[in-house]
């Protein structure tokens, strides 16, 4: 990057080259943008990532199959359940283990709670980035409640390490079901409160509506996934369309961007899809709790996991979209290759092309609406 900077400055023209980040609060973690700007209007913003690169894929080749589970938490610290689940599903496919029903339901419940928590951070920080500071406090209050619930379930508030190859680590504690139901009841009314608090605020609408529009074709071409893809009007959800785990048993809608603030695929659509998704997550969690079957929480998994040689791809719908694990086995106790295809990494790829012609202030709206999380881009 250093060479790039020097070359641009030598050109001696009216443009300015500004480093945006790596410690800027609205970059949500550590990432840097080289912003080429002519006054307030950007030529383009070039993302520079890698500050949090920990070579998690290499670690997957060094530790054994069960030993990699805690590392998957670190792929995305805001939505660690999904990273757990994706890896567990991939290895289960390799060793052909059927997960007990109860474990699948517990996975769904924990994941949906985690999705709400992750979306709360996303929309809360988005409001803060745009200039409304208060909503973040409300969002974090609710997230704390979810953190408490998940802590009661698995003992951790951030890096859960809850899912196991073949099931989940613990059954739910006594009284947990009622606590979750109580929370869901309260939270569903809070989503409406949230709409009154910020969503339909005039300034907020004007600030996000029609900004950083990503068309349907662009979204697919650049490989956007999850809420970013649905915000652009693509009706696709892995939970519904390539179902895994317990999801075929639940009824839920998939919110799709409708151009609520003007244009389909603008920053507001990506924001509001997340708000609507939280309500659907509540629905799924409630159904799962009501239908929760009895039985084991762990399948019989051999102590030493030694799959046959082969390769497998698993997909889960993470809070940041489709999270795909590609695991190659060579018949030993360690994976030959572990690859995590994350949503944020591809979302970074679109920023350079979308940012051209935007105002610098709108770059913040773009980053916030794409919900990129630095550890997930860098891994």
């Amino acid at each position, binding site marked *: 990057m250093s060479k790039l900077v020097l070359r641009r400055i030598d050109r001696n023209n009216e443009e300015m080259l500004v480093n945006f980040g790596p410690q800027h609060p609205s970059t949500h973690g550590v990432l840097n943008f080289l912003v080429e700007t002519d006054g307030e209007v950007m030529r383009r913003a070039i993302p520079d990532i890698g500050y949090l690169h920990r*070579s998690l894929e290499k670690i997957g080749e060094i530790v054994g199959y069960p030993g990699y589970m805690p590392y998957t938490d670190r792929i995305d610290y805001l939505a660690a359940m999904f990273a757990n689940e994706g890896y567990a599903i991939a290895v289960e496919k390799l060793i052909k283990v059927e997960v007990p029903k109860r474990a699948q339901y517990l996975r769904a419940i924990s994941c949906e709670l985690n999705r709400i928590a992750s979306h709360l951070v996303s929309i809360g920080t988005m409001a803060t980035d745009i200039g409304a500071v208060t909503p973040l406090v409300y969002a974090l209050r609710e997230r704390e409640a979810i953190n408490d619930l998940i802590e009661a379930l698995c003992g951790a508030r951030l890096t859960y390490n809850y899912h196991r190859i073949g099931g989940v680590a613990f059954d739910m504690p006594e009284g947990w079901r009622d606590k979750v139901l109580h929370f869901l009841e309260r939270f569903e009314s809070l989503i409406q409160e949230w709409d009154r608090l910020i969503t339909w605020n005039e300034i907020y609408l004007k600030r996000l509506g029609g900004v950083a529009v990503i068309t349907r074709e662009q979204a*697919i071409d650049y*490989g956007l996934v999850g809420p970013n893809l649905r915000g652009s009007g693509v009706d696709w959800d892995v939970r519904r369309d390539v179902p895994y785990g317990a999801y075929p048993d639940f009824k839920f809608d998939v919110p799709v961007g409708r151009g609520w603030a003007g244009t389909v695929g603008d920053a507001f659509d990506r924001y509001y899809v997340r708000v609507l998704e939280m309500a659907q997550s509540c629905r799924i969690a409630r159904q799962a709790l009501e239908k929760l079957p009895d039985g084991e929480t762990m399948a019989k998994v051999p102590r030493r996991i030694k799959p046959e040689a082969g390769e497998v791809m698993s997909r889960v719908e993470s809070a940041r979209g489709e999270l795909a694990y590609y695991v190659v086995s060579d018949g030993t106790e360690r994976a030959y290759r572990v690859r995590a295809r994350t949503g944020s990494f591809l979302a970074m790829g679109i920023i350079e092309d979308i940012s051209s012609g935007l105002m610098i202030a709108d770059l913040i709206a773009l980053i916030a609406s794409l919900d990129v999380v630095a550890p997930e881009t860098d891994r």
Partner: protein
Amino acid sequence: MTTNEIHERLRAQFGDAVGPLSEPKVDPFATVQAARIVEVCRWLKDTPGVEIDFCEDLTAVDWPKRNAIEIVYHLFSYKHRHGIVLKVEADRAKPVVPTLEGVWKAANWMEREVYDLFGVTFSGHPDLRRVMLPDDWVGHPLRKDYQEAGGFHGIPNLRENPLVELRRLDEVRLAEEAKRNPPPPPPAPAAPKAPAAAPPAASGGGAPPAPQNPPPAPKA
């Protein structure tokens, strides 16, 4: 369309440039000649009825034993909900593969990642720079024979086991304590002996362990 049908159509169109569908344990894949991968992918994207619009994943696997790097493409169609896995093999010493950036934009960053971590050059790529690691990093970490350089610009990545240092500090502390309170002279040896003798007597005389031991012995 199932993967098999897509593969049959590919074979009909491109002949031997597309290899047979593998029969592995889980997900099948087809190997494609490196020179024709762009052509094949463009056909997959543009042909009505196939229309694979999403490059879901693009990564690589290093196989030093076969002296090859496999580039793996996971392709998927949102419209028809079908997909196929393609692979391209490149020479390990000088891996060069044509870029798919012109077919799917998503390939841009994923190819940069493969370039960074595996050292595969994608010919025709518009912006082939390292993405995760610094520009002047030496080596490609996800290759199987990668050796850590032992630091970067004078910043070491190795350090002594902290336990070694803690043990050293413990020894220093104990030595200082011993210096401050020298061990009591002659009567001391007699005194420690009595308590030292007592614990074994206590543990040995403890009734529970003794009866526990005999039962396993007959069983064995």
